[in-house]
């Protein structure tokens, strides 16, 4: 009887340690509760005045995220003429600007690890913030095909800017 209790205790302790260890080694949870599609990972970082993130699939799509009080809008409705495609939508009470453009035309952003030749197709999503006129959260990615456009939108549009 006594040995059974001891065995159970040891088992439970081992389970707890395993759970804690798995939590410690898990990927960073994405900013703004972004829901990732299968096969995608998330990495957090920051600069002096922004928080940054990277949603990526090994050898595939890489979405860069940046948010800050002086971030500014990557997608600016006044710059529509420079975009191949522009949309404005209200999602869960938050305004969202979306644009597809070419590198060097509608944006100065360049991917950290380019995957295709210039000019690159860049998909950008901007969530304006509430702390001043330059407060925003921007998502950028070099998209190679329609599947990547769909993947990006399915993940990025789950972002909650109030977090």
């Amino acid at each position, binding site marked *: 009887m006594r040995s059974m209790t001891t065995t159970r205790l040891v088992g439970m302790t081992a389970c707890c340690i395993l759970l804690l260890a798995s939590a410690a080694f898990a990927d960073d949870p994405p*900013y*703004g509760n972004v829901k990732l599609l299968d096969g995608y990972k998330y990495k957090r*970082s*920051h*600069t*002096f*005045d*922004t*928080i*940054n993130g990277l949603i990526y699939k090994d050898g595939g799509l890489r979405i*860069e995220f*940046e*948010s*800050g*009080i*002086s*971030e*500014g*809008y*990557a997608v600016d409705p006044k710059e529509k003429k420079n975009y191949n495609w522009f949309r404005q939508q209200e999602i869960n009470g938050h305004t969202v600007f979306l644009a597809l453009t070419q590198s060097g035309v509608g*944006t*100065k*952003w*360049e991917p950290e690890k380019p995957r295709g030749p210039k000019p690159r197709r860049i998909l950008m999503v901007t969530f304006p*913030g509430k*702390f*001043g006129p*330059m*407060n*925003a*959260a*921007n998502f950028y990615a070099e998209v190679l095909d329609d599947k990547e456009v769909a993947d990006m939108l399915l993940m990025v549009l789950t972002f909650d800017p109030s*977090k």
Partner: protein
Amino acid sequence: MPAALRGSFAACRAIQLERVAQLLGYIQRWSLRASRAVQKSSTSRAALRSLRRVEAEQLKSEVHATLVEWFLLNLPLMKPVAAKERARPSGPSRSYLKTRVRGSRLLAAAHILAIVELSRRLHQAYAQAYDKQAADSVLPQNPFPGFDKGKLGDVNKALAEGAKLLQNSDCQKALAQAGINVTDLIKAFGNLKARPDSDPSTKGYNIFYAEKSTDPQVQQFLQTESGKGAGGFIYGQDVMLRKAFFNAHAARIGADISRALALIHEAVHLTGKSDAFFGGSAKLNDVVIHACWSKLYGHKDLAIVGN
């Protein structure tokens, strides 16, 4: 000012006014009775005798209930003989108020006591309304805090280094090529001034310590993911710095220069250029570092990034 805060102020004022009104009513009633007593005591001895005993007793008990008795006995309001008679345990029980106290002196004493009482109660009401503990939790006490001596030294050193870097013509040229209005930048940087915590005024300063700010919007921002991760940020036309600005780590670019470059970065924002304009915050860091420090270094070499 938030509506809740305005409500709290109004409530405090209402309590104060109510207390003052109560006090004034009390003083008015008391003065009226004292005046009547004085009026009657200053008339003839026969008139004094006709004063109703009940009313006199009531007045006497009221006077006994306050500090008036003690006050009167400790001031030369009575003739020495009267005081002696009052102190004697036995003997005739004659009202010293009716017969011995000079009317004018009693009135003056009543006024003095009224003023003393009014001041005491006003002070009490004020102390309650502006109780420090309550004020700390309700009122914005220090929205734009200053820096202690050590931190102020770091900021001032960074400002001096940054000003030197911006004087370099190559730096100015490269910044202009990146789309920055250099005249505006030099002006914005030159206007930066950190507030020492020893100065009670915020006037003339525009660099503050965000960690201790009680500004509701700053506090709200610091609760967000962006706020938690920021080492500094622009708030209106001010620069708010956080702990990370001072916690430099070993890096290829030294702490003082890293801080100077970070302040130039923030000053660029003060000219109206956002991070997105340069393709991201790290890209703006690269622009500033390449223009004003060295083309060999980049964003990741700053001593105040990544800590």
